[in-house]
């Protein structure tokens, strides 16, 4: 059992190779692709999914899954913008309230998974529906506009050389650095891996498995809240319809990034690479002027090819 799950078919270097292959391909196809401006754009486009993928990665590393991530993010965005606009709350306070709501949603997931011992798939399927409905009901399905500038400051940009860099991109990168460091260099980080790798052993060794899980789900909620803030900053509105596709996108980013859905194996930076790969596909294909149906087709083929090429290359190296 252990052995079989250990043969990681898609290791630590894999995602980088896949990304490199993809980028090479698009560079050969479009001269605009490799410009600083375009790449900065891609990073801005993936920052929301990228930050969601941090939370999702933590959960998948514990052998769980979170279907509710996109909807919890939408809820957070609606709460923080509505608090600021409709109730005239101080924008920073409103942001904190939004983060609190998403963290609580995560906490709820965690408690249901640990206390009631429900499968994460079922729990988060439930909260997916609940968060969606509450978002629609609370926002009355209306986009929230006229946000105070303090809410969208993460959308601002600064220049490095001639390339525009958005604060949101920087935020995402910093969060990844942080998560990577914590997972690698701190005791709680290692406990998370142990819980995902062999929960029974973790329990016997004396790690409080439930506590680790609850913290992970709540933290993931916090990341979704930050993603909500980024999404608000990027779009300039509180959008009740945000987050619909982010669900599958985030899980895809994590899996493309080489993290095992069986838990305990994976590197969080891979999820960033995974998210970027998805963004690069979309950007590159548009630059090539591929019609949207064919974009879908090519994306499907490329996802398989990119991962397979890496797989092959590592087989040769063995």
């Amino acid at each position, binding site marked *: 059992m252990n052995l079989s799950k250990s043969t990681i078919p898609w290791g630590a270097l894999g995602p980088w190779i896949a990304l490199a292959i993809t980028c090479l391909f698009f560079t050969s196809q479009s001269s605009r692709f490799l410009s600083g401006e375009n790449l900065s754009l891609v990073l801005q486009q993936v920052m929301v999914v990228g930050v969601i993928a941090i939370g999702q990665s933590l959960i998948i590393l514990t052998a769980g899954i979170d279907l509710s991530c996109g909807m919890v993010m939408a809820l957070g965005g609606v709460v923080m913008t509505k608090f600021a606009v409709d109730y005239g709350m101080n924008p920073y306070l409103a942001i904190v309230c939004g983060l609190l709501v998403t963290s609580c949603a995560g906490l709820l997931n965690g408690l249901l998974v640990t206390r009631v011992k429900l499968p994460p798939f079922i729990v988060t399927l439930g909260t997916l529906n609940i968060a969606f409905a509450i978002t629609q009901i609370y926002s009355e399905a209306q986009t929230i506009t006229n946000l105070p500038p303090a809410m969208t400051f993460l959308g601002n940009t600064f220049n490095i050389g001639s390339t525009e860099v958005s604060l949101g991109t920087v935020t995402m990168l910093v969060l990844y650095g942080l998560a990577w460091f914590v997972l690698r*260099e*701190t*005791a709680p980080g290692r406990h998370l891996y*142990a819980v995902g790798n062999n929960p029974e*052993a*973790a329990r016997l*060794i*004396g790690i409080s498995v439930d506590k680790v899980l609850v913290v992970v789900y709540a933290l993931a909620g916090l990341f979704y809240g930050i993603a909500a803030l980024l999404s608000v900053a990027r779009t300039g509105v509180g959008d009740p319809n945000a987050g619909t596709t982010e669900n599958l996108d985030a899980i895809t980013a994590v899996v493309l990034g080489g993290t095992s859905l069986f838990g305990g*194996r994976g590197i969080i930076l891979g999820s960033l690479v995974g998210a970027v790969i998805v963004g690069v596909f979309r950007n590159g294909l548009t630059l090539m002027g591929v019609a949207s149906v064919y974009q879908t087709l090519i994306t499907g083929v490329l996802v398989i090819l990119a991962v397979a090429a890496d797989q092959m290359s590592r087989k040769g190296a063995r």
Partner: protein
Amino acid sequence: MNPKVIQPLVMQAKGITKRFGQVVALDGVDFELRAGEILAVIGDNGAGKSSLIKVLSGANTPDEGEVLLDGKPVFFRSPIDARRAGIETVYQDLAVAPAMSIAENLFLGREILKPGFIGQLLRLLDKKEMLAQAIARMNDLKVGIRSMTQAVETLSGGQRQCVAVARAAAFAQHVVIMDEPTAALGVKEGNMVLELIRRVRDKGLPVILISHNMPHVFEVADRIHIQRLGKRAAVVNPKTISMSDTVAVMTGAKTVDELPAEALA
């Protein structure tokens, strides 16, 4: 340890019953562990040895009966509680995280943190120190493992067992429990573990040793708890009983009444 002086009971269990569905794994077992002794627990496969020590180590909660530590009733809801009380256990199915390295497995759940306030607050790992200590511990057992950063799943069966044994021996404060620690070990490595068990006892910690290896048991045990069909069949003294009588009781060929009085302990 002087066998004449009766040492105080460190751990005691009374009337422990544990059922798994239809199967009665433990059927009102009593158990006593005295200070500073090596107590061997032997019995046929399925006699309930692992089930018994899982109750003592908090991994299973008994359906009936109570456990006393230093004479006070304790209720371990989880292995964490037992561990807090200073009880360390090597489980038969080796509680290791296969994808993690040897050093990480040794220190899992009680990592060495970087010194200083920041290190403690952020719980930063002192990887260098852990690696150094891991090498020292494993050298104690003379296991020829090349790298402590190698994942446990790449180790041979015996090497894996050594990791679990080294962990328990290193951290115990009160009681050490080992469920068949030498089962997968070679002659040399098995002897190292027996030596280690003696060293632990000599530090003053009592050891519970489950083993099917009679020579090993008779070599190190101070007393032998014989488990049979989910019950305690007898407690015997390896200095005064023959190996064949012990096996006879274990397999049910003899009952405890047929043993000479001085064989009991």
